[in-house]
């Protein structure tokens, strides 16, 4: 399945193989995994291979953000509270849709997890685990994992501005990636114009960040002049 947009660069040949498990995670104390998962979903659903998706176990998913990151909401089903029978729910969904986002419930039993991974492989749908390391942990290691190493926002100052762009450092790894274990890629997610784009490597600050910093300098000067 093809991943359109900037995030295609994360995966070999710009796409996700059918039937695999992808884990999206973040380092302890770093946020950004949910946005990254939504952006991957948006990229997949923009392609031809993925027409339906379901999100299981996200009672407080920001759907406006999902729409901004390119997820067509009319093709996304939400099962906010799957309850005790969540493995059955996820298995049913894997039968019918191309992509299942799963925020796993507190307790995962290893046989359930293995069964779901096998189900996805058999049906050719992608299981996208959001923050599998959080809470009790997903027993299987996902085929591809994306980890948010750091996240930093641009555009907010001391009492002025607003959040505009975020730079995410993402490492890619996993069994299914032949080349480059633990490749490191930086993204603007979102960029200043709301689009996800690949950022220049760290060390050469460019693009949206610089401009907004300049803006702040100017604003600060203005405020002090008036004050």
């Amino acid at each position, binding site marked *: 399945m093809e991943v359109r947009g900037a995030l295609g660069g994360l995966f070999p040949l710009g796409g996700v193989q059918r039937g695999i498990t992808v884990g999206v995670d973040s380092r302890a*104390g*770093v*946020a*950004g*995994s*949910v*946005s990254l998962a*939504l952006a991957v979903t948006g990229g997949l659903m923009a392609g031809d291979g993925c*027409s*339906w998706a*379901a999100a299981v176990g996200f*009672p*407080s*998913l*920001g*759907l*406006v*953000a*999902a*729409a*901004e990151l390119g997820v067509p*909401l*009319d093709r*996304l*089903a*939400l*099962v*906010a*509270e*799957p*309850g005790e*029978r969540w493995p*059955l*729910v996820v298995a*049913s*969904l894997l*039968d*019918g*849709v*191309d992509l299942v986002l799963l925020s796993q419930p507190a307790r995962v039993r290893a046989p359930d997890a293995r069964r779901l991974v096998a189900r996805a492989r058999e049906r050719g749908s992608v299981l996208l685990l959001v923050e599998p390391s959080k809470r009790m942990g997903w027993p299987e290691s996902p085929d591809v994992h994306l980890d948010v190493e*750091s*996240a*930093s*926002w641009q555009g*907010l*100052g*001391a*009492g*002025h*501005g*607003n*959040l*505009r762009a*975020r730079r995410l450092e993402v490492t890619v790894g996993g069994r299914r990636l032949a080349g480059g274990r633990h490749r490191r890629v930086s993204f603007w997610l*979102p960029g200043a114009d*709301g689009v996800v784009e690949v950022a220049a490597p760290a060390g050469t600050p460019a693009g949206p960040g610089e401009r907004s910093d300049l803006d702040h300098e100017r604003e600060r000067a203005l405020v002090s002049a008036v004050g």
Partner: protein
Amino acid sequence: MTRTLVVSYPDWPAVAAGCRPDEPAVVVFANRVIAATPAARAEGVVTGLRRREAQARCPEAEVVAADAGRDARAWEPVVAAIEALTPAIEVIAPGEAALATRGPSRYFGGDRALGELVARTADSTVGVTVGVAGASAGCRVGVADGRFVAGLAARVAGSGGGGGSVLVVDKGRSRQWLAPHHVSVLGQGYEELAGLLVRLGVHTLGDFSGLPAAAVLGRFGTDGETAHKLARGLDPRPVKARTPPPDMAVAAEFDPPEMRVEAAAFVAKSLADQLLDRLDREGLAATMVSIEAQTEHGESLVRHWRHDGALNASALAERARWQLEGWLAGTGREAGRGDGGRSGPTAGLILLRIVPEEVHQDNGRQMGFWGGSAESDARAARAFARVQGLLGPDAVMTAVIAGGRGFAEQVRLVPWGDSRDEGASTPPVRGRPGQRGQGGQRGGGTRSSTEQPPWPGRLEKPAPAVVHHETTEAQLLDASGNAVEVNGRGLLSSPPCTVSISGAVPRTISAWAGPWPLEERWWDRGGRRRARLQVQLDNGDAHVISREKGCWWVEASYC
């Protein structure tokens, strides 16, 4: 021609809602009056009126929202009570049922005696279950040859004045009795035909029945032929009706037993699809089906459902749902009332079966122009329906972006299978044609998502990836450790320095902006006043924190 008795309540939704007949009340659906109490009718309220118009004619009328489930639940005990007099009662819709009178009439001493007995029984049951005084509930009974004439007789019975009246049309006199009636009484499904007949100068059923049958068939097609038979007092489908082969029945077993109506109703929906599929292949359509439910303790409830037109899958599933709701609702009431002669089930359902009792040749149906949906859509629809079967219909939602200022208000969640708003660029509900066709037009109050007013006070893009629905309290302190507040002019008392979210260790705020005050609906009591801040913490997290009613809450997080 089967001698038939029809018992009917002209304004069943109003009766089921517990409205007293001497107090004006109207039941509205989709902003239109669908039923009214006699008191409201006396003020000039008629069915089909807009709610506003009805309130103008009768300002003191109480307005009750329609609820098909409530109608069905209230009807079920009445059917059970009549069933005690005679078996094989056919439910036509909530508020209307038919039974064959040959045996019972002889037993109870004639059609009129039976009719009066049924009316008394029905009214007293209504009096007990709904709490409306017995005789004034307005039961109408008609006895005649065939269901159409009996139904019309029941409708006419009340208009002569006097509640609970019974009208008997003598055997073999149907045609003469029908002759003076206007063609519009042909009813549902024949509105177009009736309109055409009036324009052609044929006003009464007598005029219509005088036309030669062959000419009617040539000019008006099979519908016209059926109506012509009705007008002549004949059974419209005497020959075609036949018992279906036994393998037409569909059944589902529940293991473990199912207690919840929703889950059973979803199974009923898939059974209905299956049954309709089989009938389709045989080129048949069902006009009467029986729905049978059985519990673990061996109790069973069978109801026959009749439908004028051919039953489609969603109509069939809806009937199964009504029946189960009525039955299961019986448990609670019975417990409160002691022994009422009838009881709900004491255990979970183990079997649900739908049997087509009466089928006829399907005369064909115009399919939609757009054809079937893609295979993947059907597959997804099946998966979602399965999850709804597991967890209930509200478990699978789809989101529609709507207007609003808060992040939670910008999203409207719709159960999968219900129509998303009109105008939204969505594929209509896939895999389930015909379900809730008019749902999207309901009311005038909801804004369509294509309409985008400016919504001042909305925060700029990007939107946060996590929007908290449960309230998470935050403590906002300034540099000297005092709580930060927002004053009446929408300004902060001091710049915030640290924030502690739901009692966690305070973190330093590295950047912030705001507050953006938000005052909504200040003109009425439902109004909200908030002020919102964007804060960025030293570890890179960002949140939207809003102050409402003297507390700071985390509204959303940029995760």
